[in-house]
Each structure stands twice: as C-alpha cells, then as structure tokens.
C-alpha cells in the first residue's frame, strides 16, 4: 500500500473500532460485557478513535513527522478489523454451559471474589426482640413480591448458608430466585437437583465466576442449559459435606426472560 492508501486504511481501522465501541455503549450491549465502572471508558475511547480517524483524513496534506504513520499492510488491516467484526456478529453476549462448567461453580460464599466475613451485627434488645426500623429488621432488606415470596438472588442464599443470623431470615421461607439453569453434575444423589447459576463479575465477562445454588425439583431436567428460569419454593439449608448448603425445594420452575442485569457485581 502506498502512503495515501495506508493513511486511509489506518483511518478506516480507527473508524471501525470507534464505531464498534460506540455501538456497544449506545445499544446497551456493553452491560453484558463489562462492569458498569468501565462503560464510560468504552464510549470515551470510541469517541476518541472516531476523532482520530477523521483527523487522520483531515491532516492528509499536512507534513508528517519522521516518526509518522508507517505503511499498513493487508494482513494487519484484516487482523485489526476482521476478528473484531466477526466476534461482534457471533458473540451471543453471554457464556454457554461449556465455559461456565470449565470455570467451576462457586457453591461456598467464602469462594466468592471480594468476599469478606460480615462484621458483627448490632445486638438485639435485652429481651432478644428486634426493633422495627433498626439495622436488624429483616423487613428493611428482604423485599417481597406481590405473592408474598421473598425476592432473593443466588448470592443472598449463599451468604445465608454461611451466616447463621442471615440464615434465619430465609430458612423455610418462600423465596423467588431467577437465574440460569445448569444440570447438577455433583451433589445430586437422587438426581432431582439442578444448579441455579448467576455470573459474578469483577471487571469483564472474561473474569466471570459462576455462582450457583441447588434447586430440588422433579420437573425441570429437560430445560435447555443456561436458559433463564424463575424458581419459586422453600429455602432450606441442609448440612452436606460438613457445611450448610442452600437448596430451594421448588414449587414451580418456569422459563423466563433474561435478567436486565445479566451479571452480579
């Protein structure tokens, strides 16, 4: 490629990247890839790349420094654009069962990234009762849906399994939890359990760790892997393998739409 074509090629590459980064942000697709703290960097970079792309064209006639643009070959041009565009097209914006199973499930709250043991809670009053409106009052942090089920996340039940005080808030209560279905390959002696999974992310999807709780149900073994399901049932915490494990004894398991926020942070 001669110098002018190379400049067009460089400008084109920057434009492709700028458009893709801006597209991911504006379409909201970025939420399936990055922690919210990184979204702003993506759109700013997209804008800067678009500006650079235009600036390269507008300064075409200006004198270049001796360190100016080098020639852009066909191979780098393809390498810098084709994989990005192909991945943008192919990527389903979520992990399938293969990658999730390869990462191994987090079944213990102590294995959750960023977990730190909870501080001692404030003491209840002298007679052991919990005053309404205090930090100990579960009604402040346990939200119920219209049917009276506690709306919980998989992580809440994992925390509850590891914390006696929190376990009391959930144990034998009716809960509703949404997550992704995966067959239980271990800890399933009677063959009637599956894993309800959510991905926990620190920075981007590449560091996602699958967080899973068990659901005991007779009627859900033929669901597609990683399909989103809403589980309603009773939260239990049987001791298995020497520690409390969260198991929802399901009343109903229904397929549902993907969560707006596919990750937990």
């Amino acid at each position, binding site marked *: 490629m001669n110098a002018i074509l190379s400049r067009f090629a460089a400008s084109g590459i920057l434009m492709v990247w700028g458009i893709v*980064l801006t597209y991911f942000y504006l379409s909201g697709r970025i939420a399936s*890839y990055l922690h919210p703290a990184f979204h702003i960097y993506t759109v700013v970079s997209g804008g800067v790349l678009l500006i650079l792309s235009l600036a390269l064209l507008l300064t075409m006639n200006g004198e270049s420094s001796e360190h100016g643009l080098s020639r852009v070959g066909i191979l780098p041009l393809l390498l810098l654009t084709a994989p990005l565009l192909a*991945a943008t097209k192919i*990527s389903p914006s979520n992990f399938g069962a293969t990658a999730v199973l390869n990462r191994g499930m*987090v079944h213990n709250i102590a294995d959750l990234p*960023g977990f730190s043991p909870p501080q001692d809670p404030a003491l209840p009053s002298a007679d052991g009762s919990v005053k309404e409106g205090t930090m100990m009052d579960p009604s402040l942090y346990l939200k119920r849906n219209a049917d009276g089920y506690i709306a919980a996340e998989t992580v809440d039940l994992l925390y509850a399994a590891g914390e006696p005080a929190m376990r009391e808030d959930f144990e034998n209560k009716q809960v509703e939890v949404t997550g992704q279905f995966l067959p239980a*390959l271990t800890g399933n002696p009677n063959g009637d359990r599956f894993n309800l999974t959510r991905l926990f992310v620190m920075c981007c999807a*590449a*560091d996602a760790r699958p967080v899973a709780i068990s659901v005991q149900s007779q009627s859900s073994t033929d669901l597609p892997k990683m399909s989103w399901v809403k589980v309603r049932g009773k939260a239990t915490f049987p001791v298995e393998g020497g520690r409390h494990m969260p198991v929802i004894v399901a009343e109903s398991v229904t397929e549902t739409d993907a969560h707006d926020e596919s990750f937990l942070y």
Partner: protein
Amino acid sequence: MNTPWFSFSVQDFSYAFLSVLLEGVPFILLGTLLSGLIDQFLPSRLMTRFLPRNAFAAVCLGGVLGMVFPMCECGIVPVIRRLIAKGLPVSSAVAYMLAAPIVNPITALSTYAAFRGQGAAEFTALRLGLGFFVAVLAGLAVLNLPIGAVLKKTILESVTLSGPSGDGKTAPLGRRLVAAMESGVRDFLDVMVYFILGVGVASLFSTAVNQELFLPLSLDDRLAIPAMMTLAGILSLCSSSDAFIAATFVAFPAVAKLAFLVFGPMMDLKLAFIYSAVFTRRFVAALALGLFVITGLLCLRLAVVLP
C-alpha cells in the same frame, strides 16, 4: 471429573474475546496517546539529565517509576517503547514495564480489599515488594545483554534514528500535535495487532480449558506455585482486579496466590504477544521463563514464613 479437560465453543470464545478487547482498548489507547506526546514533547536530554549514572540505581529508578507514573500492563508497552527511543536505558524500561502494573495505588488497594480478613496488609506489602524486587532483578539481568538481543530491529532503528527529534524547538505546535497523533496512531495499530493475537489465545484457554484440573495441585507448595502461575498466564487478568480472583482459590496456599499475583501482571499469554511489539521473540521467551523461575523460587522460599 465430569467435564473433559478441553471443550471449545466458538460462542464462548468470541464472548470472552470481545469482553477483554472492550476492557483493554481504552487503556492501550491512553498509552499510545501518551506515547505520541512523549515522542514529540519529551526532550531526550531531559531523560539523560535526570537518570542516575549508576546502572543499578537507574534500574531501581525504573521500578520506582511504576509508583510515580502508574500504568496498567496493556497500556505500558507503547509508553516504554517511546521512552526507550528517548534514551531511557532498556534495563530501566524493563524494570518499569514489569513493576508498574503491580506497584501502583490501584493494585495495592484492590489487593488489600480482596484479602480482607486474610492478612491483607502483609499480603499487599508482600505483593508490591516482591513485584518490585523481581522487576528490578529482571532489569539488572537485561543490563548484561546486548541491546540487539533485546529490542526488535525496527525499535532498535527508531532508537538510533530518534536523535534530537522531539526536542524540535522550531516546529510549530500544530505540526507537532499532528506528528504526535501520527506517532500515537502508529503505536496503537502496532500494539493492537499483538494485543488481538494475545487476547485470542488467552480467550481460547480461559474458556476451553477445565480450570478444575488445577485443584489437585493445591496440596503441595511445590506444585501449587507453578500451577497458579500457569493459571495466571492462561487467564490473562487485569492487574487491578486479579487479586479478587486469586483470593477465591481458597484451596491454594497463600504463597501460590502470591505467585499468581506477582507473575500474572508481568507475563501472561496476552502480554507475551504485546511485548513482541517491542522485544525480540527470543527475549520475550527468556523473560517469561526467567520470571516464572525467579517468582516461583522466591515464593517457594517465602512458603516458610507465609501460612
């Protein structure tokens, strides 16, 4: 073992690939914009004036630069490429490149937060201290190497050619800004080629390899340390968040996690490709091997004092 050790899915691969690209590109762009400005506005004589004449002190200063001018591992390569062209000794540049992703405030804070309740202060100090020490050792090792064996031919030529450029007292500001943009764009395109290749390989391994394979190795320090360093190399995590992942490997001893957190930001599959934008392949391979062995041996030694 219920799942095979290797199972590939193109959808999973493309998803992980895109997520790392989207996360990393802003930092590479920042690094390359900075490199363009260094190219045009940092006088070469400034570098030589402030660098200590003593080689050991200059290498140590390279490590300290990481604290003063923190950069993540993705963005630092274009910066050191320009700094080398401006007269920073390669040994100091290598020390800076390896230390900067570890000895910076963001990494320190994230390590402290991730290891709360697990001796966070000691662990953070050990990570930063060991990272600095290994980076300086690597820089000192480079001191004894001929520059032609370290730098790629094109980079070597740019060092030779750079001369007084960037001191350009006579060039108008507008022209220098255009030249800075062109230098930055050139660095961006050069580094991105290697970044894409590295992210591709890292994404393949991080999605297709069954990571539970590493668990049986956690029982013995001599196996756990290299296993965790290998895992760090495969996962190619960002140094600002890798501590949160390392802390979750509860089955592994603390020294193995330390090895993961020192080796990972210095060398992983993605970085091996990015380093190849500046250094010879043979040097990158030797650096990878050297960092693996030195970090591993130091951590094994620390196993005596660290539970």
